[in-house]
């Protein structure tokens, strides 16, 4: 069992653990849906992870993570490529999707503030950068939320963006696996 509830993990050889995958195959990709199940739109990243569950190839490890910064940074460590999906709060229209190249540019910290933790997703990435633990390739998809109160489910606008983010994550994985053209 892994740290934060891996929902799908397939390995090419029996007995391999997730960390070995990134060593043995360049194309291994970690996908992390971040969020809190009972904080309405904050569950956006987890909902995207659910949508991806049956659609990933053997090289992809899918993780649901509740977003504690240090644990998240450690989860990213050792991977060459990772894609992270989280709710954001930038003031844009609910359901707006944004893509960030987090390896090369720090995330705008203020819009990934909707962590219920002391260290947010943006902090996790910056801490990883300071300690030189980030993957070579790190992409973050943000989905604009509106309601982060206690409860369920997602707002309809956020819910309706989920299939598009699923599609874009799959496309991102393909790009990573095919390598630079």
């Amino acid at each position, binding site marked *: 069992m892994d740290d*934060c509830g891996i929902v799908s993990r397939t390995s090419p050889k029996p007995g391999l653990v997730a960390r070995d995958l990134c060593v043995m195959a360049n194309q291994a990709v970690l996908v992390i849906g971040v969020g809190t199940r009972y904080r309405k739109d904050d569950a956006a990243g987890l909902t995207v992870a659910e949508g991806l569950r049956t659609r990933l190839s053997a090289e992809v490890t899918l993780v649901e*993570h509740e977003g504690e910064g240090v644990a998240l940074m450690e989860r990213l460590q050792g991977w060459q490529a990772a894609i992270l999906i989280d709710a954001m709060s930038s003031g844009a229209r609910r359901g707006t999707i944004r893509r960030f190249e987090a390896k090369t540019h720090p995330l705008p910290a203020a819009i990934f503030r909707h962590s219920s933790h002391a260290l947010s997703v943006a902090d996790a990435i910056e801490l990883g950068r300071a300690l030189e633990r980030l993957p070579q390739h790190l992409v973050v998809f943000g989905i604009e939320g509106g309601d982060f109160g206690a409860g369920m489910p997602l707002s309809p606008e956020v819910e309706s963006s989920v299939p598009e983010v699923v599609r874009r994550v799959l496309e991102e994985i393909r790009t990573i696996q095919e390598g630079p053209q």
Partner: protein
Amino acid sequence: MKAKVLKVDYLARVEGEGGLYVKIRNNSVSEVKLNIFEPPRFFEAFLRGRRFDEAPDITARICGICPVAYQMSAVHAMEDAFGIKVAGQLRSLRRLIYCGEWIESHALHVYMLHAPDFLGFPDAIQMARDHADVVQRGLRLKKAGNEIVRLVGGREIHPINVRVGGFYKVPTQRELAPLAEQLKWARDAALETVRWVARLPFPEFTQDYLFVALRHPEEYPFNEGRLVSNRGLDIAIADYDSYFLEEHVQHSNALHSTLKNAGAYFVGPLARYSLNFDRLPPSVQQAAKEAGLDSVCRNPFQSIIVRSLEILYACEEALRIIEQYEPPPAKAELQPRAGTGYGCTEAPRGILYHRYKVGEDGAILDAKIVPPTSQNQKAIELDIADFVRKYLALPSDELQWKCEQAIRNYDPCISCATHFLKLELDNEG
């Protein structure tokens, strides 16, 4: 007339979200309001109608930092309702998983959230750039705690292996052996941590707290004991509701707790330590003395030392449990019955109280959850008021920083108890 306004829109380095407002008029503090939002109320409603055995897993979702505490309070309350007591190795395994949670939670707070205050860094990221080796030690220490929770609890965050009556599966001796190796390193690192934090600069600030913690006849408390205070309280957990009050205050979504006829009280490491110093092993007592602490600690800024001592204790206790471990049957026999059960355990931040009323069919009819941060709200407000009063002459930005630090002394788990913490210091004359 001198005006002063301190305002922080977002209080960093606390778990969760909330707000603090401080009003200063004529050079005196006229109002301090901590304003927090409290998911446990949502969970109390969510639990009604659920089966008794769902309570540990549902309440664990309240907090990603202290899920074990929620699980432990829930299982003890249910077992109390059903009239069973989990003993022997199963009981030890519960202490072991709690050790893991204390180590990870305290290491996170000591190194990543609290230490930057003392060293003058705005956050752990800046601190990591200048003190990578220190931060790495903290992260490895935290990981040693995570590993315990992962192994005994099934996974690190929101462990799934805890159930009413015991566990779904218990580890073998062989599975626990690698933990012992890591814990030996962690024990040494914890001692280094105590020595490191003892050298930090602490503001002169002591408070006459009313400490409340569990006290057990033989052990430093995790899961069991009586609720005691430094002013004569000594009650069974089942009597909690007769002695403690929760009241709604206009400025907070979280209920404020008070001890009847006594008011604000303090829960958490300082209270635990000060009420249970004699239950610590000599090695930890010695480390405390070397760090300059007495058997009672009333300076909340020194909670960083006490947390470090508790990491040391948890490492030693975990090693002791692993050395004596023999796998027991995974679960004690139990028969659900109608009744009310009470559980109170020592979460990293202090006592966490659960009460459940269960029907004949094992369905939850009523739930009450009081997290430690809710109980500390009044103590936090009083600390801030006294601190601002004492240090009013400091420049505003420095005073504001110190106020934030004074809140962080409590390691407030606002994901247990709050929403966005904004600090506002209003001094308009």
